[in-house]
Protein backbone atom coordinates (compact mmCIF):
# COMPACT_ATOMS: atom_id res chain seq x y z
CA UNK A 1 0.00 0.00 0.00
CA UNK A 2 2.90 2.30 0.74
CA UNK A 3 4.14 1.69 -2.78
CA UNK A 4 0.69 2.51 -4.06
CA UNK A 5 0.76 5.90 -2.34
CA UNK A 6 3.90 6.79 -4.23
CA UNK A 7 2.76 5.31 -7.52
CA UNK A 8 -0.58 7.04 -7.89
CA UNK A 9 0.74 10.64 -7.90
CA UNK A 10 3.54 9.55 -10.23
CA UNK A 11 1.04 8.02 -12.61
CA UNK A 12 -1.10 11.10 -12.42
CA UNK A 13 1.88 13.18 -13.42
CA UNK A 14 2.62 10.87 -16.33
CA UNK A 15 -0.98 10.95 -17.47
CA UNK A 16 -0.96 14.73 -17.18
CA UNK A 17 2.13 14.98 -19.31
CA UNK A 18 0.79 12.54 -21.92
CA UNK A 19 -2.36 14.38 -22.93
CA UNK A 20 -3.43 17.80 -21.76
CA UNK A 21 -7.18 17.29 -22.23
CA UNK A 22 -7.58 13.99 -20.31
CA UNK A 23 -9.67 14.38 -17.21
CA UNK A 24 -7.02 14.22 -14.53
CA UNK A 25 -9.23 13.34 -11.62
CA UNK A 26 -10.86 10.47 -13.44
CA UNK A 27 -7.57 9.26 -14.87
CA UNK A 28 -6.04 9.18 -11.40
CA UNK A 29 -9.01 7.23 -10.07
CA UNK A 30 -8.70 4.69 -12.87
CA UNK A 31 -4.96 4.25 -12.42
CA UNK A 32 -5.50 3.74 -8.69
CA UNK A 33 -8.07 1.06 -9.45
CA UNK A 34 -5.68 -0.64 -11.89
CA UNK A 35 -2.88 -0.62 -9.32
CA UNK A 36 -5.17 -1.96 -6.62
CA UNK A 37 -6.23 -4.80 -8.94
CA UNK A 38 -2.61 -5.62 -9.72
CA UNK A 39 -1.75 -5.66 -6.03
CA UNK A 40 -4.34 -8.29 -5.24
CA UNK A 41 -2.90 -10.47 -8.03
CA UNK A 42 -5.48 -9.84 -10.74
CA UNK A 43 -2.77 -10.18 -13.37
CA UNK A 44 -2.03 -13.75 -12.27
CA UNK A 45 -5.50 -15.20 -12.84
CA UNK A 46 -7.07 -15.56 -16.31
CA UNK A 47 -10.42 -13.86 -15.86
CA UNK A 48 -9.27 -10.95 -13.69
CA UNK A 49 -6.27 -10.53 -15.98
CA UNK A 50 -8.61 -10.13 -18.95
CA UNK A 51 -10.51 -7.30 -17.26
CA UNK A 52 -7.25 -5.73 -16.14
CA UNK A 53 -6.08 -5.77 -19.73
CA UNK A 54 -9.38 -4.26 -20.90
CA UNK A 55 -9.00 -1.48 -18.35
CA UNK A 56 -5.52 -0.65 -19.57
CA UNK A 57 -6.58 -0.67 -23.23
CA UNK A 58 -9.49 1.61 -22.43
CA UNK A 59 -7.19 4.05 -20.67
CA UNK A 60 -5.08 4.22 -23.80
CA UNK A 61 -8.17 4.69 -25.94
CA UNK A 62 -9.38 7.44 -23.61
CA UNK A 63 -6.07 9.18 -23.99
CA UNK A 64 -6.39 9.07 -27.77
CA UNK A 65 -9.94 10.41 -27.69
CA UNK A 66 -8.91 13.19 -25.33
CA UNK A 67 -6.09 14.05 -27.61
CA UNK A 68 -8.59 14.21 -30.47
CA UNK A 69 -10.71 16.53 -28.39
CA UNK A 70 -13.55 14.04 -27.75
CA UNK A 71 -13.70 14.70 -24.06
CA UNK A 72 -17.12 13.18 -23.49
CA UNK A 73 -16.31 9.77 -24.94
CA UNK A 74 -12.88 9.92 -23.34
CA UNK A 75 -14.53 10.32 -19.96
CA UNK A 76 -16.89 7.46 -20.71
CA UNK A 77 -13.99 5.21 -21.63
CA UNK A 78 -12.22 6.13 -18.41
CA UNK A 79 -15.38 5.18 -16.55
CA UNK A 80 -15.46 1.86 -18.42
CA UNK A 81 -11.77 1.32 -17.61
CA UNK A 82 -12.42 2.01 -13.94
CA UNK A 83 -15.28 -0.46 -13.67
CA UNK A 84 -13.19 -3.10 -15.47
CA UNK A 85 -10.30 -2.50 -13.06
CA UNK A 86 -12.68 -2.78 -10.10
CA UNK A 87 -14.13 -5.97 -11.55
CA UNK A 88 -10.64 -7.40 -12.06
CA UNK A 89 -9.81 -6.71 -8.42
CA UNK A 90 -13.11 -8.13 -7.22
CA UNK A 91 -12.76 -11.29 -9.28
CA UNK A 92 -9.23 -11.80 -7.98
CA UNK A 93 -10.40 -11.43 -4.39
CA UNK A 94 -13.36 -13.75 -5.01
CA UNK A 95 -11.16 -16.46 -6.48
CA UNK A 96 -8.76 -16.14 -3.58
CA UNK A 97 -11.58 -16.52 -1.05
CA UNK A 98 -13.03 -19.48 -2.94
CA UNK A 99 -9.59 -21.13 -2.93
CA UNK A 100 -9.30 -20.59 0.78
CA UNK A 101 -12.74 -22.11 1.36
CA UNK A 102 -11.85 -25.12 -0.80
CA UNK A 103 -8.63 -25.62 1.12
CA UNK A 104 -10.45 -25.37 4.44
CA UNK A 105 -12.87 -28.13 3.41
CA UNK A 106 -9.96 -30.18 2.05
CA UNK A 107 -8.33 -29.90 5.45
CA UNK A 108 -11.46 -31.29 7.08
CA UNK A 109 -11.54 -34.19 4.63
CA UNK A 110 -7.91 -34.98 5.47
CA UNK A 111 -8.67 -34.83 9.17
CA UNK A 112 -11.60 -37.22 8.75
CA UNK A 113 -9.43 -39.56 6.68
CA UNK A 114 -6.87 -39.63 9.49
CA UNK A 115 -9.65 -40.46 11.95
CA UNK A 116 -10.88 -43.42 9.94
CA UNK A 117 -7.38 -44.93 9.56
Amino acid at each position, binding site marked *: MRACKFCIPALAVLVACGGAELNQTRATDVQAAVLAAEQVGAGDQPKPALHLQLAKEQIEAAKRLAADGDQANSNLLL*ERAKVDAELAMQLARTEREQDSARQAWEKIRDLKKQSTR
Partner: protein
Amino acid sequence: MSNMRRNYGPGFAAFALLGAACGGAAAPSTELVSARNAYTEARNGETAKLNPGGVHEAAEALQKAEAVHKDDAGSQREKNYAYIALRRSELAIAAASEALARQEQQRAEQTYKSELEQKSEQATQQSSQYAQQLTQTQRELQQNTQTLQQNRQQLQEARIAADQAQAELRQAEAVREEEGRLIISLSGVLFEPGGTTLSTLAERRLDTVAHALGAYANRPIVVEGYTDAQGSARMNQELSQRRADAVREYLERRGVNSERIRAVGKGESNPVASNETAEGRANNRRVEIIVDRESGTPSSGDSSSSVENGATQSPSSTQGSSRTANPPGNFPSQSSMPRTSPPAEAPAAPRE
Protein backbone atom coordinates in the same frame (compact mmCIF):
# COMPACT_ATOMS: atom_id res chain seq x y z
CA MET B 1 -29.74 4.98 4.23
CA SER B 2 -28.43 1.63 3.20
CA ASN B 3 -31.88 0.03 3.58
CA MET B 4 -33.43 2.73 1.45
CA ARG B 5 -30.88 2.07 -1.23
CA ARG B 6 -31.58 -1.63 -1.10
CA ASN B 7 -35.31 -1.11 -1.64
CA TYR B 8 -34.94 1.64 -4.12
CA GLY B 9 -32.45 0.09 -6.53
CA PRO B 10 -34.18 -3.04 -7.83
CA GLY B 11 -37.62 -1.41 -7.90
CA PHE B 12 -36.39 1.49 -9.86
CA ALA B 13 -34.54 -0.64 -12.36
CA ALA B 14 -37.59 -2.86 -12.85
CA PHE B 15 -39.62 0.26 -13.52
CA ALA B 16 -37.06 1.40 -16.05
CA LEU B 17 -37.12 -1.98 -17.79
CA LEU B 18 -40.91 -1.89 -17.93
CA GLY B 19 -40.84 1.63 -19.35
CA ALA B 20 -38.40 0.59 -21.99
CA ALA B 21 -40.52 -2.39 -22.96
CA CYS B 22 -43.78 -0.40 -23.18
CA GLY B 23 -42.40 2.78 -24.72
CA GLY B 24 -42.08 1.32 -28.13
CA ALA B 25 -38.51 2.65 -28.40
CA ALA B 26 -35.93 1.38 -30.89
CA ALA B 27 -34.36 -2.04 -30.36
CA PRO B 28 -31.73 -2.04 -27.60
CA SER B 29 -28.08 -2.63 -28.41
CA THR B 30 -26.48 -6.00 -27.68
CA GLU B 31 -24.62 -4.36 -24.82
CA LEU B 32 -27.86 -3.13 -23.27
CA VAL B 33 -29.46 -6.55 -23.57
CA SER B 34 -26.45 -8.12 -21.85
CA ALA B 35 -26.61 -5.48 -19.13
CA ARG B 36 -30.32 -6.13 -18.56
CA ASN B 37 -29.72 -9.91 -18.33
CA ALA B 38 -26.81 -9.51 -15.93
CA TYR B 39 -28.87 -7.20 -13.76
CA THR B 40 -31.76 -9.66 -13.70
CA GLU B 41 -29.36 -12.37 -12.58
CA ALA B 42 -27.93 -10.16 -9.86
CA ARG B 43 -31.32 -9.04 -8.62
CA ASN B 44 -32.96 -12.46 -8.48
CA GLY B 45 -30.10 -14.58 -7.16
CA GLU B 46 -28.25 -14.75 -3.86
CA THR B 47 -26.50 -11.52 -4.80
CA ALA B 48 -29.45 -9.38 -3.74
CA LYS B 49 -29.23 -10.85 -0.22
CA LEU B 50 -25.46 -10.91 0.08
CA ASN B 51 -24.61 -7.64 -1.68
CA PRO B 52 -27.65 -5.33 -1.84
CA GLY B 53 -25.43 -2.24 -2.15
CA GLY B 54 -23.75 -3.63 -5.25
CA VAL B 55 -27.10 -4.52 -6.80
CA HIS B 56 -28.26 -0.98 -6.17
CA GLU B 57 -25.25 0.45 -7.96
CA ALA B 58 -25.92 -1.93 -10.84
CA ALA B 59 -29.52 -0.71 -10.95
CA GLU B 60 -28.43 2.90 -11.10
CA ALA B 61 -25.98 2.13 -13.90
CA LEU B 62 -28.64 0.28 -15.85
CA GLN B 63 -31.09 3.10 -15.30
CA LYS B 64 -28.60 5.51 -16.80
CA ALA B 65 -28.09 3.22 -19.79
CA GLU B 66 -31.84 2.90 -20.26
CA ALA B 67 -32.21 6.68 -20.18
CA VAL B 68 -29.56 7.11 -22.82
CA HIS B 69 -31.22 4.38 -24.85
CA LYS B 70 -34.46 6.28 -24.65
CA ASP B 71 -32.87 9.52 -25.80
CA ASP B 72 -30.27 8.24 -28.18
CA ALA B 73 -31.02 4.63 -29.09
CA GLY B 74 -28.23 2.64 -30.74
CA SER B 75 -25.61 5.30 -30.05
CA GLN B 76 -22.07 4.71 -28.80
CA ARG B 77 -23.10 6.49 -25.61
CA GLU B 78 -25.82 3.89 -25.04
CA LYS B 79 -23.29 1.12 -25.61
CA ASN B 80 -20.81 2.69 -23.23
CA TYR B 81 -23.39 3.10 -20.45
CA ALA B 82 -24.74 -0.39 -21.09
CA TYR B 83 -21.16 -1.72 -20.83
CA ILE B 84 -20.72 0.04 -17.51
CA ALA B 85 -24.08 -1.29 -16.28
CA LEU B 86 -23.09 -4.82 -17.31
CA ARG B 87 -19.82 -4.55 -15.41
CA ARG B 88 -21.62 -3.17 -12.35
CA SER B 89 -23.90 -6.20 -12.29
CA GLU B 90 -20.92 -8.53 -12.74
CA LEU B 91 -19.13 -6.68 -9.97
CA ALA B 92 -22.11 -7.11 -7.65
CA ILE B 93 -22.29 -10.83 -8.44
CA ALA B 94 -18.55 -11.30 -7.91
CA ALA B 95 -18.63 -9.44 -4.59
CA ALA B 96 -21.55 -11.60 -3.46
CA SER B 97 -19.58 -14.70 -4.46
CA GLU B 98 -16.69 -13.48 -2.36
CA ALA B 99 -18.97 -13.01 0.63
CA LEU B 100 -20.39 -16.47 0.07
CA ALA B 101 -16.90 -17.97 -0.14
CA ARG B 102 -15.93 -16.20 3.06
CA GLN B 103 -19.01 -17.64 4.79
CA GLU B 104 -18.07 -21.09 3.52
CA GLN B 105 -14.57 -20.65 4.80
CA GLN B 106 -15.84 -19.62 8.23
CA ARG B 107 -18.18 -22.57 8.28
CA ALA B 108 -15.31 -24.88 7.33
CA GLU B 109 -13.08 -23.43 10.01
CA GLN B 110 -15.82 -23.90 12.58
CA THR B 111 -16.34 -27.48 11.43
CA TYR B 112 -12.60 -28.11 11.56
CA LYS B 113 -12.46 -26.75 15.08
CA SER B 114 -15.37 -28.96 16.16
CA GLU B 115 -13.72 -31.99 14.57
CA LEU B 116 -10.49 -31.25 16.37
CA GLU B 117 -12.29 -30.83 19.68
CA GLN B 118 -14.11 -34.09 19.12
CA LYS B 119 -10.89 -35.87 18.29
CA SER B 120 -9.19 -34.35 21.28
CA GLU B 121 -12.04 -35.46 23.53
CA GLN B 122 -11.88 -38.98 22.10
CA ALA B 123 -8.12 -39.07 22.60
CA THR B 124 -8.52 -37.90 26.18
CA GLN B 125 -11.13 -40.57 26.86
CA GLN B 126 -8.97 -43.24 25.28
CA SER B 127 -5.96 -42.09 27.21
CA SER B 128 -7.98 -42.22 30.41
CA GLN B 129 -9.11 -45.76 29.60
CA TYR B 130 -5.53 -46.83 28.90
CA ALA B 131 -4.42 -45.28 32.18
CA GLN B 132 -7.14 -47.18 34.05
CA GLN B 133 -6.19 -50.43 32.35
CA LEU B 134 -2.55 -49.84 33.15
CA THR B 135 -3.36 -49.17 36.80
CA GLN B 136 -5.49 -52.31 36.94
CA THR B 137 -2.77 -54.39 35.32
CA GLN B 138 -0.16 -53.01 37.67
CA ARG B 139 -2.39 -53.81 40.64
CA GLU B 140 -2.92 -57.36 39.39
CA LEU B 141 0.79 -57.77 38.80
CA GLN B 142 1.52 -56.59 42.30
CA GLN B 143 -1.03 -59.02 43.73
CA ASN B 144 0.37 -61.87 41.66
CA THR B 145 3.89 -61.02 42.77
CA GLN B 146 2.78 -61.04 46.40
CA THR B 147 0.96 -64.35 45.94
CA LEU B 148 4.02 -65.82 44.24
CA GLN B 149 6.23 -64.69 47.07
CA GLN B 150 3.82 -66.15 49.62
CA ASN B 151 3.69 -69.43 47.70
CA ARG B 152 7.46 -69.56 47.51
CA GLN B 153 7.72 -68.90 51.20
CA GLN B 154 5.13 -71.57 52.00
CA LEU B 155 6.91 -74.01 49.73
CA GLN B 156 10.20 -73.24 51.39
CA GLU B 157 8.65 -73.67 54.82
CA ALA B 158 7.05 -76.95 53.73
CA ARG B 159 10.39 -78.21 52.44
CA ILE B 160 12.11 -77.28 55.67
CA ALA B 161 9.34 -78.96 57.67
CA ALA B 162 9.57 -82.08 55.50
CA ASP B 163 13.34 -82.18 55.85
CA GLN B 164 13.07 -81.77 59.60
CA ALA B 165 10.41 -84.45 59.82
CA GLN B 166 12.48 -86.84 57.77
CA ALA B 167 15.52 -86.12 59.88
CA GLU B 168 13.54 -86.86 63.03
CA LEU B 169 12.21 -90.05 61.56
CA ARG B 170 15.61 -91.16 60.33
CA GLN B 171 16.90 -90.78 63.83
CA ALA B 172 14.08 -92.78 65.34
CA GLU B 173 13.12 -95.34 62.72
CA ALA B 174 14.32 -97.13 59.60
CA VAL B 175 13.32 -94.90 56.74
CA ARG B 176 13.96 -95.47 53.07
CA GLU B 177 12.74 -94.06 49.79
CA GLU B 178 11.57 -96.09 46.83
CA GLU B 179 10.27 -94.62 43.57
CA GLY B 180 9.25 -91.42 45.22
CA ARG B 181 7.59 -93.17 48.13
CA LEU B 182 8.79 -92.80 51.70
CA ILE B 183 8.73 -96.07 53.64
CA ILE B 184 8.95 -96.03 57.42
CA SER B 185 9.55 -99.45 58.82
CA LEU B 186 8.74 -100.08 62.48
CA SER B 187 9.93 -103.36 63.79
CA GLY B 188 10.73 -104.76 67.20
CA VAL B 189 8.19 -105.05 70.01
CA LEU B 190 5.16 -103.05 68.93
CA PHE B 191 2.32 -105.20 70.18
CA GLU B 192 1.77 -107.56 73.07
CA PRO B 193 2.40 -111.14 71.94
CA GLY B 194 -0.44 -112.40 69.72
CA GLY B 195 -2.42 -109.19 70.38
CA THR B 196 -3.23 -105.95 68.68
CA THR B 197 -2.74 -103.50 71.55
CA LEU B 198 0.12 -101.09 70.96
CA SER B 199 2.83 -101.01 73.58
CA THR B 200 3.68 -97.74 75.31
CA LEU B 201 7.00 -97.63 73.50
CA ALA B 202 5.27 -98.23 70.16
CA GLU B 203 2.87 -95.37 70.84
CA ARG B 204 5.81 -93.05 71.52
CA ARG B 205 7.42 -94.12 68.27
CA LEU B 206 4.15 -93.55 66.42
CA ASP B 207 3.86 -90.08 67.97
CA THR B 208 7.08 -89.16 66.22
CA VAL B 209 5.81 -90.69 62.99
CA ALA B 210 2.48 -88.81 63.25
CA HIS B 211 4.34 -85.57 63.74
CA ALA B 212 6.50 -86.25 60.69
CA LEU B 213 3.50 -87.19 58.56
CA GLY B 214 2.16 -83.69 59.08
CA ALA B 215 4.82 -82.51 56.63
CA TYR B 216 3.25 -84.64 53.88
CA ALA B 217 -0.29 -83.34 54.22
CA ASN B 218 -1.33 -84.02 50.64
CA ARG B 219 0.08 -87.49 50.21
CA PRO B 220 -1.81 -90.75 50.74
CA ILE B 221 -0.55 -93.07 53.47
CA VAL B 222 -0.73 -96.86 53.61
CA VAL B 223 -0.12 -98.79 56.81
CA GLU B 224 1.03 -102.30 56.02
CA GLY B 225 1.12 -104.95 58.73
CA TYR B 226 3.46 -107.97 58.51
CA THR B 227 3.96 -111.07 60.65
CA ASP B 228 6.59 -113.72 60.75
CA ALA B 229 5.94 -117.10 59.21
CA GLN B 230 4.97 -118.93 62.36
CA GLY B 231 1.37 -120.13 62.56
CA SER B 232 -1.13 -120.48 59.77
CA ALA B 233 -1.01 -118.05 56.90
CA ARG B 234 -4.70 -117.24 57.32
CA MET B 235 -4.33 -116.34 60.95
CA ASN B 236 -1.17 -114.33 60.20
CA GLN B 237 -3.07 -112.49 57.53
CA GLU B 238 -5.88 -111.58 59.94
CA LEU B 239 -3.46 -110.63 62.69
CA SER B 240 -1.45 -108.38 60.36
CA GLN B 241 -4.65 -106.66 59.27
CA ARG B 242 -5.79 -105.99 62.82
CA ARG B 243 -2.38 -104.66 63.77
CA ALA B 244 -2.27 -102.42 60.70
CA ASP B 245 -5.75 -101.17 61.68
CA ALA B 246 -4.53 -100.47 65.21
CA VAL B 247 -1.66 -98.38 63.90
CA ARG B 248 -3.94 -96.55 61.48
CA GLU B 249 -6.43 -95.74 64.25
CA TYR B 250 -3.66 -94.49 66.49
CA LEU B 251 -2.29 -92.25 63.78
CA GLU B 252 -5.78 -90.89 63.14
CA ARG B 253 -6.10 -90.06 66.80
CA ARG B 254 -2.80 -88.23 66.49
CA GLY B 255 -4.19 -85.97 63.77
CA VAL B 256 -3.52 -87.80 60.51
CA ASN B 257 -6.48 -87.27 58.19
CA SER B 258 -8.55 -90.49 58.03
CA GLU B 259 -9.41 -89.85 54.39
CA ARG B 260 -5.85 -90.28 53.25
CA ILE B 261 -4.80 -93.23 55.34
CA ARG B 262 -5.68 -96.89 54.90
CA ALA B 263 -4.48 -100.10 56.45
CA VAL B 264 -3.51 -103.33 54.70
CA GLY B 265 -2.71 -106.67 56.26
CA LYS B 266 0.12 -108.40 54.46
CA GLY B 267 0.43 -111.46 56.69
CA GLU B 268 3.70 -113.24 56.47
CA SER B 269 4.47 -112.02 52.96
CA ASN B 270 7.45 -109.92 52.03
CA PRO B 271 9.76 -111.08 54.79
CA VAL B 272 12.76 -108.89 55.28
CA ALA B 273 14.76 -111.56 57.12
CA SER B 274 14.84 -115.27 57.62
CA ASN B 275 12.05 -116.80 59.66
CA GLU B 276 14.44 -119.52 60.86
CA THR B 277 16.00 -117.39 63.56
CA ALA B 278 14.43 -115.47 66.38
CA GLU B 279 16.15 -112.28 65.23
CA GLY B 280 14.92 -112.69 61.67
CA ARG B 281 11.35 -113.34 62.79
CA ALA B 282 11.50 -110.25 64.99
CA ASN B 283 12.49 -108.21 61.95
CA ASN B 284 9.72 -109.73 59.87
CA ARG B 285 7.13 -108.79 62.51
CA ARG B 286 6.78 -105.20 61.55
CA VAL B 287 4.57 -102.38 60.43
CA GLU B 288 5.50 -100.33 57.39
CA ILE B 289 4.03 -96.90 56.92
CA ILE B 290 4.23 -95.88 53.29
CA VAL B 291 3.90 -92.25 52.37
CA ASP B 292 2.88 -92.47 48.75
CA ARG B 293 3.43 -90.00 45.93
CA GLU B 294 1.07 -87.04 45.53
CA SER B 295 -2.65 -87.86 45.19
CA GLY B 296 -3.57 -89.13 41.78
CA THR B 297 -0.19 -90.75 41.19
CA PRO B 298 -0.55 -94.51 41.31
CA SER B 299 1.48 -96.26 43.91
CA SER B 300 3.77 -99.03 42.79
CA GLY B 301 2.15 -101.10 45.53
CA ASP B 302 -1.26 -100.89 43.83
CA SER B 303 -1.71 -103.75 41.41
CA SER B 304 -4.21 -106.34 40.40
CA SER B 305 -1.98 -109.09 41.66
CA SER B 306 -2.72 -108.09 45.23
CA VAL B 307 -6.25 -109.48 44.96
CA GLU B 308 -4.99 -112.71 43.57
CA ASN B 309 -2.44 -112.95 46.29
CA GLY B 310 -5.09 -112.66 48.97
CA ALA B 311 -3.89 -109.52 50.72
CA THR B 312 -6.65 -108.07 52.87
CA GLN B 313 -7.46 -104.49 53.49
CA SER B 314 -8.99 -102.70 56.37
CA PRO B 315 -12.76 -102.44 56.10
CA SER B 316 -12.49 -98.88 57.36
CA SER B 317 -10.25 -97.90 54.49
CA THR B 318 -11.79 -95.09 52.49
CA GLN B 319 -9.88 -95.77 49.33
CA GLY B 320 -10.92 -99.35 48.88
CA SER B 321 -8.05 -100.45 46.66
CA SER B 322 -6.08 -103.61 47.28
CA ARG B 323 -2.44 -103.73 48.14
CA THR B 324 0.05 -106.08 46.70
CA ALA B 325 1.02 -109.03 48.79
CA ASN B 326 3.61 -111.50 47.77
CA PRO B 327 2.82 -115.17 48.19
CA PRO B 328 3.85 -116.63 51.54
CA GLY B 329 7.52 -117.36 51.69
CA ASN B 330 8.49 -115.08 48.81
CA PHE B 331 10.72 -112.11 49.31
CA PRO B 332 9.61 -108.73 48.02
CA SER B 333 10.61 -107.84 44.53
CA GLN B 334 12.09 -104.50 45.58
CA SER B 335 15.82 -104.68 45.25
CA SER B 336 16.19 -102.41 48.23
CA MET B 337 14.66 -105.01 50.56
CA PRO B 338 17.32 -106.89 52.45
CA ARG B 339 17.21 -110.62 52.05
CA THR B 340 18.79 -112.16 55.10
CA SER B 341 17.68 -115.76 54.79
CA PRO B 342 15.45 -118.04 52.72
CA PRO B 343 11.72 -118.10 53.60
CA ALA B 344 10.43 -120.66 56.06
CA GLU B 345 7.32 -122.76 55.96
CA ALA B 346 4.38 -121.28 57.83
CA PRO B 347 3.71 -122.96 61.17
CA ALA B 348 0.26 -124.19 62.14
CA ALA B 349 -0.48 -121.41 64.63
CA PRO B 350 0.73 -117.82 65.03
CA ARG B 351 3.50 -117.50 67.51
CA GLU B 352 5.29 -114.30 68.27
